[in-house]
């Protein structure tokens, strides 16, 4: 038995396809009622991990526990999990009602009871009256909801979702994200959600596991993943990030700072300088943490630079500012607040621009 708070415990799980190591060694817990996302680029092993939870792939090593029971000898049709497939896998030879009722065969229900349950599900997914439609008359968004209903009607302990929004266009996808989150809160079932879209993962999840090359890089809340990534890979995968080389300088036990190439010395409280004196580090700062100004701001950390490139993106603009001691220009993201508010858009002829930032926004990472 494992930790009672965790509904799913993944313990030292490895998976190999022949000589290809799809999952290196993964351990993590997923709690009851959590909306948990597996996020990573294609081929990172997230779908393989999801399919191991469903039982479609066996584990090469390690064990998966669901609600305290070891799963390795339990075939997919006996596991207390249900899945929404990437392709939705709506049975084309059955109508909507028979698709949703598919898993109810063994429940010994009368036809009326089954239909009532299906109708409840159709209400839940906001498709009332669709029961007799044929599967091939449905749009992508509708198929996605039917797949959801078909899994939820069985009241699984865990719902697995394999990039369920990937096939939808952008607008519909954003609407479905909101509905999915609301639905999960309403039914209270643990959702394990696979996606390669970081924005989607940040929007939906209670916690996210960032995966790459068959490893889990970090498991954390969206906010902590964004604000306090633990490695350069996570920092670079989620959002954009500027990196600077630096060295830790501790002044006894009183204060400390980081010497950086490009940003000068950045004083930091000791509890954030977890590394010893002289340790090489990487200093990471997100583009929107910089403030641009034409004059040196008072009382803030700042360096001067020259605008080398600019990109207008509507709500905001991206500026690339060259500073001394840094080979690549620093990316800065600045909101376009309108004439008279904030900074007027700078041009390369403007002369020096000042970049300023707060030490709180600085992230320290291990050097490569």
């Amino acid at each position, binding site marked *: 038995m494992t930790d009672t708070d965790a509904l799913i415990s993944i313990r030292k799980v490895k998976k190999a396809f022949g000589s290809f190591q799809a999952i290196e060694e993964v351990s993590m817990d997923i709690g009851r009622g959590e909306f948990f996302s597996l996020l990573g680029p294609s081929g990172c092993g997230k779908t393989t991990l999801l399919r191991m939870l*469903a*039982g*479609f792939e066996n584990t090469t090593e390690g064990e998966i526990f669901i609600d305290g029971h070891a799963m390795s000898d339990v*075939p*997919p*049709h*006996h596991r207390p*999990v*249900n*899945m929404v*497939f*990437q*392709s939705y*896998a709506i*049975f*084309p*030879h059955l109508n909507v009602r028979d698709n949703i009722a*598919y*898993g109810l*065969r*063994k429940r010994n229900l009368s036809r009326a009871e089954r239909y009532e349950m299906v109708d409840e599900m159709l209400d839940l997914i906001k498709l009332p009256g669709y029961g007799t439609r044929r599967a*091939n008359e449905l749009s992508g968004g509708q198929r996605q909801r039917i797949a959801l209903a*078909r*899994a939820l009607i*069985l009241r699984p302990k865990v719902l697995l979702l394999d990039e369920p929004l990937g096939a939808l266009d952008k607008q519909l996808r954003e609407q479905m994200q909101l509905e999915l989150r609301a639905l999960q809160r309403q039914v209270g079932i643990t959702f394990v959600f696979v996606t390669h879209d970081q924005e989607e993962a940040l929007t939906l999840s209670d916690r996210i596991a960032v995966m790459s090359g068959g490893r889990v890089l970090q498991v954390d809340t969206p906010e902590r993943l964004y604000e306090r990534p633990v490695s350069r890979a996570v920092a670079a995968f989620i959002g954009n990030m500027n990196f600077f080389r630096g060295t830790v300088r501790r002044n006894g036990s009183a204060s400390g700072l980081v010497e950086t190439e490009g940003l000068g010395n950045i004083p930091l409280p000791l509890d954030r300088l977890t590394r010893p004196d002289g340790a090489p580090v990487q200093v990471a700062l997100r583009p929107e943490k910089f403030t641009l100004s034409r004059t040196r701001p008072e009382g803030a950390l700042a360096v001067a630079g020259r605008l080398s490139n600019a990109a207008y993106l509507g709500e905001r603009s991206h500026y690339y500012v060259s500073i001394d001691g840094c080979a690549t220009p620093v990316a800065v993201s600045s909101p376009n607040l309108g004439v008279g508010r904030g900074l007027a858009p700078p041009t390369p002829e403007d002369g020096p621009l000042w970049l300023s930032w707060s030490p709180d926004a600085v992230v320290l990472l291990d050097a490569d």
Partner: protein
Amino acid sequence: MSDGTYIKRPNRPLQVYAVIFLIVLYVPVLFIPLFSFNDSIYVRFPLEGWTLKWYGELWQREPVWNALWNSVRVGVVVAVISTILGVIAARAITRYRMPGKSALVTFIMMPLVIPGIIFGVALLVLLSRMGIPLTLYTVGLGHLIVCLPFAVATLLPRFEGFDPSMEEASADLGENGWWTFWRVTFPMVFPGVVASLLLTFTISFDEFIMAFFLTGTDPTLPMYIWGQLRFPQEFPSVLALSSLILFVSFILVFLAQWIGRIGLDETKKS
């Protein structure tokens, strides 16, 4: 629309060629029914007049009925067995990672290409060495070898055409392999099964080379016709019998091809 593109614009000479091609393809076969209604013992122009007497004559011949019954029995059994074997083979080929899979498929498809005479004599030698007498069962075995590749070839696209996550979805929703097969797999490949049954029945019904080597005392319909070809006076009734066989074969194969392709194009589109 793509229909009107430069590359696909109409090509008159090619259209004419296509029509001539179809005529040359069909007309030789159509001479058989044409002469079967000819009121003459000789198969030659000019036609003497219309008659149905050759068909009437067939009706009264007991050996024809016996041969027909033999062919139907062999055909039904061969169609059912080869389709069942085809379904499970096609499923195994498309669903599982198996080392040596392409070699297996080549092996199963071999009778499509290798001359029938070789299979015929090889089976004949085996059966005679084992002391097994030639009966309709031995013809059936020969037909099974000929029909299996066609059954597999008809069913493979069906299994390839459907998303493996359909079966996974069924397992995920709590059905074991047996129920998944009957509730998902079978309904989805059903048109292929019907096509395979019709096609393999027709192939067995029309097959001559294997039957030539493996038939004992009970002839199949093609063997009966072969026997009658020696007697010129029997020619008109053979023409009548052949017309009936051709008619039935065309209908069955057309249905098989039609049913076998209908759903496939739909799955490709979506």
